[in-house]
């Protein structure tokens, strides 16, 4: 299993798209951080970029990679290896290599220019999003045999998490305007890892605004120890559950 993981990592790190992704992140982070003299504002700009780019690249790259290594996986499956192990090592390889790319692209500039709690939170959020979206990609890909359909599905999922979900939330908000929705909002935000990540950084940067009534509810939840525990558990669940479901499916799949 370790061998397969190592092989996948080396294979991906040599991949031109991943190298390009790393460079793009690096250039973006360096330019944003060095152009902006207010580091908190730079982190916010970077947050916007990360919240869009990291899920997109991770979900797309992971699904394309899994499709392209279908033959490799078939070969591995013919060896005396457990399917669970093969699937898990592919996941590990993908997430480790993409996390390395993220750490090089964003982690290094942020540590150099904006080494603060906000900066660290940003890195953590990016890392978790990488892991989550690789997991979601594998969940989507395992049940669709057709490559084009699968990639379309991945793009749709990204669109859903990045944009449609928030639109839906806004719609619900205005439909149920007359009801106190603050607590429901906290629960709703847990349904989208991108939102959790964004709020985790906001708690650190827009502190004064969040002292308002609604903000205070968020702060009391996401800022308190219990809330942080719950959010970390939810984020972990976002990593584990899609992968676990995909793993069950892969075990029974006709390759």
């Amino acid at each position: 299993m370790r061998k397969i993981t190592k092989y996948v990592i080396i294979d991906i790190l040599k991949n031109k798209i991943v190298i390009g992704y790393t460079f793009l992140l690096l250039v973006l982070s360096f330019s944003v951080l060095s152009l902006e003299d207010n580091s908190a504002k730079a982190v916010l700009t970077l947050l916007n970029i990360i919240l869009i780019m990291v899920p997109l690249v991770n979900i797309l790259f992971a699904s394309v990679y899994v499709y392209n290594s279908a033959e490799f996986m078939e070969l591995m499956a013919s060896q005396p290896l457990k399917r669970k192990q093969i699937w898990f090592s592919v996941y590990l390889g993908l997430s480790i290599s993409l996390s390395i790319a993220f750490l090089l692209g964003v982690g290094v500039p942020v540590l150099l220019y904006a080494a603060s709690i906000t900066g660290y939170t940003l890195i953590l959020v990016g890392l978790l999003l990488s892991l989550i979206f690789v997991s979601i990609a594998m969940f989507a890909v395992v049940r669709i045999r057709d490559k084009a359909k699968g990639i379309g599905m991945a793009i749709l999922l990204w669109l859903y998490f990045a944009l449609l979900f928030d639109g839906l939330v806004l719609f619900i908000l205005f439909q149920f305007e007359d009801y106190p929705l603050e607590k429901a909002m906290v629960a709703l935000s847990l349904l989208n890892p991108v939102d959790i990540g964004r709020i985790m950084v906001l708690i650190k940067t827009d502190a004064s605004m969040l002292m308002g009534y609604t903000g205070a509810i968020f702060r009391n939840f996401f800022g308190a120890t219990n809330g942080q525990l719950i959010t970390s558990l939810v984020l972990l669940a976002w990593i584990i559950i899609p992968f676990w479901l995909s793993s069950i499916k892969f075990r029974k799949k006709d390759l």
Partner: protein
Amino acid sequence: MRILPFILCLLCLRLDAAILYAGNNKPFPNITAAVQAATFGDTIMVSPGIYHEKNLIIDKPITLMGVDFPILDGENLYEVISIKADYVRVEGFTIRRSGVSSIIDYAGIKIYNRSWVAVVNNNVEDCFFGIYVQNGTNCLVANNRLKASAKTEQQSGNGIHCWKSDKLYILLNTITGHRDGIYFEFVTHSEIRANQSFQNMRYGLHFMFSNNDAYFNNSFSNNGAGVAVMFSKGIQMTGNYFSKNQGDAAYGILLKEISDSHINHNLFKDNTTAILAEGSSRIEMKNNRFVSNGWALKIQASCMEITVNDNNFIGNSFDIGTNGSLVLNNFNNNYWDKYEGYDLNKDKIGDIPYRPVSMFSMVVERNPAAMMLFRSLISTVMDKSEKIAPSLTPENLMDNQPLMKPVAL
């Protein structure tokens, strides 16, 4: 040279003014006795120690001076010093534990309907009201340190409370832990300068029905609800520092029904809302700095002729919030760090107008729970599309001459 003593006599009002000593092993064992013996213009020097004078009434124009801060203890029962004469000066005491009552406004030091009274350099600790000026004229309250530990608004009074007074001078005081730091009601022609008011339960400074006053170079921070200026006109607010007034109903300055006033050269930092203006008119806001606030300005549609010029808006979550589409105010020549325009003719003024009200701030104004989506992709998309074709945001609320560089302040 024979006339020299005569001139000296003229220079000094009374050369025979005596100095009376009160305290242990002094001619007067307590202060009350010394006050009874004193006559016009005398000075009473009080030695260090703890004095239980119950309610000390000063009804003569004398100076009461503490040596090394003698302690006057009100035993949580009495008003500590009541000043009922003109030309009284109280200096250098530690005044503590006044009575607390819901019927009588007990104070550490209270001035009753008098003028030319000075309260200087005292420590006022755990008093209900700290220094209370009732119907005073030409009074000075300077360099006092007031400290209380208020737990509820009912159980605590204001630090420096002024009612129906004229020409007061409140200078260099430090006030903390009271209900309102400084409270003005029906006070006119007065000046509040260089005070520090922090961690008070309600407002750092509270103005009601007080016209033609000024406050300069004060610092108001961490107060429960910031500073409130209500139902007054002709107020000057210059060079003050408002910071960390955080909470849903906390404002750097809350302006309610204010007119003909000036807010200049202030610094607002880390407040939930730096300035909220309601029903106010003819206010000039110039050369202020708004840094890292939740909302820099919330100007309700009920305001008119507010001019916001030459200010710096830096790092605020929202620059301006409003609740309607009517705009009768002017927002020109400010520096906005969110401005994305260009300056082709290099006159340091942006070529396209800046709209400081974002679509998302209007959405939040209508539906506060939408705050959850702050800085999300959908809010950015909404803001961008709104910039191209304004529908929800007030069309006229814009800065036609946004500055490219911050105003040097």
